[in-house]
């Protein structure tokens, strides 16, 4: 499976809903030690799209300033985190659009509090409703290729399959499915959830992803800013390696040095 048929060809520019993006690293904004580290990490990661949640006003950890802090420098991607019904997800998306004036939404529709895995059935319903309502929908979904195809068919601008549970740091549990999804997708595939370290990011890109969204792996690293810089290199490494065309795996050795001309 080496297909590179997905919307945003590896190695070239990533485009979502007609918007060309210069960075393939999407970063979350939660869980950082403080705002200074957050902004330094976003900077070090070179992120262009950053995610944010929609919450009742009094609970806004950084006061009124998150939009002020980030709004001018990043493309904000509000999510519907915490929503467990189509209705809540749709309303949250609409509030987000109203609040910050973007029609982009990362659609989360949690099916299970323990795993935070999405609810596939409701996800499709909500995605359809939001697309009809004019949203650019980026759904957080399972690594089920049938579901990803379906989400694309109802008009999602990208699909965001999970690698492993949110915050688990277990990386990509099923590289086979992810590669399959990438090889068949007509829209960009952004790996979402489960990234633990840089090698996970590289693998995602090598499997054909157009981008990676991560949060905890950077925010909760011992040194978030340094980890963000590592993630930036990881995206470059992965996109470059895929575009460069790796050597095949062989089961037997093959000498690199010449085999003739040895001394006797």
């Amino acid at each position, binding site marked *: 499976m080496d297909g590179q048929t997905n919307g945003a060809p590896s190695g070239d520019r990533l485009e979502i809903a007609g918007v060309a993006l210069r960075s393939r690293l999407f970063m*979350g*904004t*939660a*869980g*950082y030690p403080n705002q200074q580290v*957050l902004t330094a990490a976003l900077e070090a990661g070179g992120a262009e799209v950053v*995610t*944010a*949640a*929609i*919450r*009742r*006003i*009094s*609970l*806004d*950890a*950084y006061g*009124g300033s*998150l*939009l*002020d802090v980030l*709004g001018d420098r990043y493309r*904000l991607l*509000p*999510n519907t*985190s915490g929503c467990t019904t189509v*209705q809540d997800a749709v*309303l949250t998306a*609409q*509030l*987000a*659009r*109203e*609040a*910050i004036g973007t029609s982009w939404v990362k659609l989360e529709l949690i099916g299970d509090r323990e795993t935070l895995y999405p609810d596939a059935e409701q996800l499709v319903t909500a995605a359809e409703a939001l697309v009809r309502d004019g949203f650019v929908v980026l759904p957080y979904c399972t690594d089920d290729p049938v579901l990803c195809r379906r989400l694309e068919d109802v008009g999602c601008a990208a699909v965001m399959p999970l690698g492993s549970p*949110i915050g688990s740091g277990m990386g990509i549990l099923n590289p086979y499915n992810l590669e399959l999804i990438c090889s068949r997708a007509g829209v960009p595939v952004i790996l979402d959830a489960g990234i633990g370290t840089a090698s996970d990011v590289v693998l995602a890109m090598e499997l054909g992803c157009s981008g990676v969204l991560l*949060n*905890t792996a950077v925010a909760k690293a011992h040194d978030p800013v340094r980890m963000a810089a590592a993630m930036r290199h990881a995206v470059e490494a992965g996109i470059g390696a895929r575009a460069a065309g790796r050597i095949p795996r062989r089961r037997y050795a093959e000498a690199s040095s010449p085999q003739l001309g040895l001394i006797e």
Partner: protein
Amino acid sequence: MKKVRINGSEETVRAETVAELLRECGLEERARGLAVAVNRVVVHRQEWARARLAEGDRVEIIRLSVGG
């Protein structure tokens, strides 16, 4: 005076409209980045001044928060 539910808490307010409610809550100046829903319907910013509140309305006032 009427009772409305704001972000999940029962409150007694004087405001007749969404705009007045935000003023009453001291959110007027911080209004950039806010969004409001009444009874699970978004009230657009340009309608705040004329969107009237009724007894028992459920009001959600949200803004952007950190998130992943």
